[in-house]
């Protein structure tokens, strides 16, 4: 960085309406239950006569199953059931975009529920066991006999694209391609004074939520298969119904409070196995993964290889960008095509670039399968584009913030796909604030060099607009004036449920404690879609706002007759209805509710919120709208690099994001602090090591996530432009805080030592290698 201090850019004037509860750092409705140990998670639920399940998994990355014999396991006393692919009505696990109606199933995208003749990755499920005790289930696993015929595997996406490479599944290893074609890249490059080209690499990483996957299932007297499970997506009931061979309405998902998910509980985990075993045994079944199994069984974040070629003029204006992205889809596609789409759409970063060419491809290998993880391709893209921006600034001998300022998107500009951004774009506002908060630079000390780095980013909130996302919510009043919210949205831990309560309390004028939210049930709560894609608050928040506002109108209309005042002159707060400006003219809400009830007025409302709907874009050019909107922000760090040991320490750590409007300020800060720590882990610690398809990081002492000692806590600066599409102008802040962090750290390391580590994680060894290359 060229400056010794940075000054925050003044904010444009914003007028946010004063609200009573929204925006306040209120105690979350789920907090005390969790803090007193009363919350019953998926693995904490037990039933009478319950069986205990285990999964038999492949130990080979690529092999034919020559022989599978479960007869000895079946014969073991205490074993209730052993299932293999032969026993399933339909062994395909349809990896549809979850929760979506009318979505086309991609050809060749089906992972088997249980492998039958062929295994494609280590950990692939082959057989299920249910037994009277966990010990017997474990013993039964040991009695399953299997013979593999190893087949050639392919473990690198570039190798996998070469002619003659082993084919993971027919017809070839190309899972999906996406392209952006905007303007004339050749002309743009010709206009450039300088072309900068670099390649960046990121590894497999794991979500490492503290709660391993788990659940309990049972068949009830109606023949309904009930599954109490930790999931981000209750709508998987449809895929489960298909695989189990029952109608959709015979699968009931009861979602629990999640002990973390971050995308790793977005795909189906234990629930399909539970459903199958419960159906076959007609007994309750429990399946909870061990940590080791969790690390092997669920998806990983995609490794990417990203090459940027950027044309730029001496004055700092970017004229063209040519970007190639290759991601490792692992053994089955799952959400890889969509993750790649996100990465491609965000590949340029939040910059005005007239001529853009992006070529993305995601490739099958015999590695662990890859799918959703907080940011969904965005962090990989940002790691590349934000280092590239620093590289260009250095080549131009410009300050990196000044260089970005010239190219930052502004409201009304078009992204690389031609989507016009209508909300506030506070890129310079957030970056300059994060940098300002670094204060003065710490001096170098001998071999320990200090560096500053930052990264800006954009990250979508809400799902791809051609997926036609909807969310329903039900809000109602009880006769005592308390409020019930029903929404299918899963509580991932981020405060999804609390924000709904806070919105309903705001609109209906009751204290937060008087709202009870029933959530995450595929049958008893209105389907709200997934807790993914930073869509929870945007979609379900709007649905609750809509439903609560309808109920509010009913209340105020009735009160209007009573007070003989127009409804607009009335308000609801603290459990009372009153005349604005004359609070002494009031009555308890409960009384008004009873009045309404006596007259048969509707005291509840089921609302459906629709995101913008668009048609799919041409995959050959991707020109048009892809997302509802974007969140913008920045992360800045000061690091100390020990040039003799290669160790990197984070000395200062600041995040600044425009969240549109904070519904619960503490929860927003919590997302920023937590997301940024995942980003710091991504930057410096985390790699899920896979050698020739064999996972090496199968415990939490090998897969290292940040402890409290690793990094200074993140200083979170929350800005509110009020321009988001969510309730009260909120944007989304679930995924975004992670996105810029690794690039910020990489830029800081480069600033400290003058050479760049272009690969994650930035380990001491990689730092020393970079120093060696430079000298």
């Amino acid at each position: 960085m060229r400056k010794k201090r940075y000054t925050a850019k003044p904010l444009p004037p914003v007028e946010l309406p004063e609200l009573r509860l929204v925006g306040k750092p209120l105690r979350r409705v789920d907090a005390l239950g969790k803090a007193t140990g009363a919350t019953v998670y998926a693995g904490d639920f037990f039933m009478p006569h319950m069986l205990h399940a285990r999964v038999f998994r492949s130990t080979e990355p690529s092999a034919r199953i020559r022989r599978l014999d479960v007869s000895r396991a079946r014969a073991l006393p205490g074993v209730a059931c052993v299932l293999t692919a032969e026993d399933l009505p339909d062994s395909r696990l349809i990896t549809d975009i979850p929760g979506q109606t009318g979505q086309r199933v991609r050809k060749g995208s089906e992972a088997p529920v249980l492998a039958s003749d062929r295994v494609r990755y280590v950990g692939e499920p082959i057989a299920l066991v249910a037994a009277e005790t966990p010990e017997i289930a474990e013993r039964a696993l040991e009695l399953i006999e299997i013979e593999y015929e190893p087949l050639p595997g392919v473990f690198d996406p570039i190798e996998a694209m070469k002619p003659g490479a082993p084919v993971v599944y027919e017809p070839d290893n190309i899972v999906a391609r996406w392209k952006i074609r905007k303007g004339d890249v050749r002309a743009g490059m010709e206009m450039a004074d300088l072309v900068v080209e670099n390649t960046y690499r990121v590894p497999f990483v794991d979500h490492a939520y503290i709660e391993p996957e788990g659940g309990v299932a049972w068949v009830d007297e109606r023949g309904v298969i009930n599954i109490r499970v930790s999931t981000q997506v209750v709508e998987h009931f449809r895929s489960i119904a298909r695989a189990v061979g029952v109608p959709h309405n015979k699968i009931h998902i009861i979602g629990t409070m999640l002990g973390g998910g971050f995308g790793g509980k977005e795909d189906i985990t234990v629930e399909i196995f539970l459903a199958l075993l419960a159906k076959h045994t007609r007994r309750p079944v429990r399946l909870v993964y061990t940590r080791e199994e969790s690390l092997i069984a669920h998806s990983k974040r995609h490794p990417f290889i990203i090459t940027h070629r950027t044309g730029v003029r001496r004055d700092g204006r970017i004229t063209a960008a040519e970007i190639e992205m290759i991601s490792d889809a692992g053994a089955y596609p799952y959400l890889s095509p969509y993750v790649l789409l996100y990465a491609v759409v965000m590949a340029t970063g939040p910059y005005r670039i007239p001529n853009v060419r992006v070529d993305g491809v995601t490739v099958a290998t015999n590695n662990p399968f890859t799918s959703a993880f907080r940011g969904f391709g965005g962090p990989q893209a940002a790691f590349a584009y934000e280092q590239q921006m620093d590289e260009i600034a250095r080549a131009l001998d410009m300050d990196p913030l000044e260089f970005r300022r010239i190219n930052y998107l502004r409201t009304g500009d078009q992204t690389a796909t031609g989507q016009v951004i209508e909300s506030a774009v506070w890129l310079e506002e957030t970056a300059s604030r994060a940098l300002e908060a670094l204060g003065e630079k710490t001096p170098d000390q001998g071999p320990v060099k200090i560096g500053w780095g930052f990264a800006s980013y954009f990250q979508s909130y809400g799902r791809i607009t051609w997926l036609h996302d909807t969310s329903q919510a039900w809000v109602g009043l009880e006769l005592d004036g308390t409020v019930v919210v029903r929404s299918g949205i899963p509580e991932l831990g981020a405060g999804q449920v609390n924000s709904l309560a806070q919105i309903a309390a705001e609109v209906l004028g009751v204290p937060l404690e008087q709202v009870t939210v029933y959530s995450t049930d595929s049958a008893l709560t209105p389907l709200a879609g997934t807790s993914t894609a930073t869509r929870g608050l945007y979609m379900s928040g709007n649905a609750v706002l809509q439903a609560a506002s309808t109920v509010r109108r009913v209340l105020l209309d009735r009160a209007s007759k009573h007070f003989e005042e127009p409804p607009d002159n009335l308000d609801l707060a603290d459990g009372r209805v009153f005349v604005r400006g004359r609070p002494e003219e009031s009555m308890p809400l409960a009384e008004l509710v009873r009045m309404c009830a006596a007259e048969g007025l509707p005291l509840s409302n089921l609302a459906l919120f629709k995101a913008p709907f668009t048609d799919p874009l041409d995959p050959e050019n991707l020109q048009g709208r892809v997302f509802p909107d974007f969140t913008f922000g920045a992360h800045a760090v000061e690091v100390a690099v020990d040039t003799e040991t290669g160790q990197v320490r984070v000395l200062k750590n600041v995040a600044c994001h425009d969240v549109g409007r904070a519904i619960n300020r503490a929860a927003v800060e919590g997302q920023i602090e937590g997301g940024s720590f995942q980003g710091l882990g991504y930057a410096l610690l985390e790699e899920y090591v896979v050698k020739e398809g064999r996972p090496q990081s199968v415990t939490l002492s090998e897969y290292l996530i940040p402890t409290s000692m690793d990094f200074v806590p993140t200083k979170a600066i929350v800005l509110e432009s009020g321009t988001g599409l969510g309730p009260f102008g909120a944007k989304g802040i679930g995924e975004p805080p992670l996105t810029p962090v690794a690039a910020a750290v990489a830029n800081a390391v480069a600033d400290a030592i003058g050479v760049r580590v272009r690969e994650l994680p930035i380990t001491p060894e990689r730092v020393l290698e970079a120093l060696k290359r430079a000298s």
Partner: protein
Amino acid sequence: MEPKLITLTVNGHTHHVALKPNVTLLHALRQMGYIDVKDGCEKGDCGACAVLLNGRAVNSCLVLAWQADGAEVLTAAGLGTAEHPHPLQEAFADVGAVQCGYCTPGMLIAAKALLDRTPYPTEEQIREGISGNLCRCTGYAKIIQAIQVAAEKISPAASPAKPE
């Protein structure tokens, strides 16, 4: 592998339970209904199963239940209830130190052990004190803050952080 009757006093309640020798304290407690003791790795890497064993914070997954015969065990649920929360529980809830909540019981136990020994901890001591408890949601900032808030509440006098 015959079961043996052992005595465990958990959150003030004395239990006599017959357990096999290969049962860890974690599984014993969960079987007894103390499901607030969480299973995160069974290897001592995550701290989700932390309890106070005779006043010392330990990973209950690394203690054989027989080794705890006769011991006093305190779990997070034993600290307080929703009606009468412990200051740590209240502070965790109030400042937003609880997100998914799965690490919270173990984190509370580590915090309790820390404050029992160090009533006026510095930020560094707090970070050190909870360094065996992984949290993937919060980035630890609000957990550290909650422990500071609780420390002031538990031992208000002579708090060096706030000179009178």
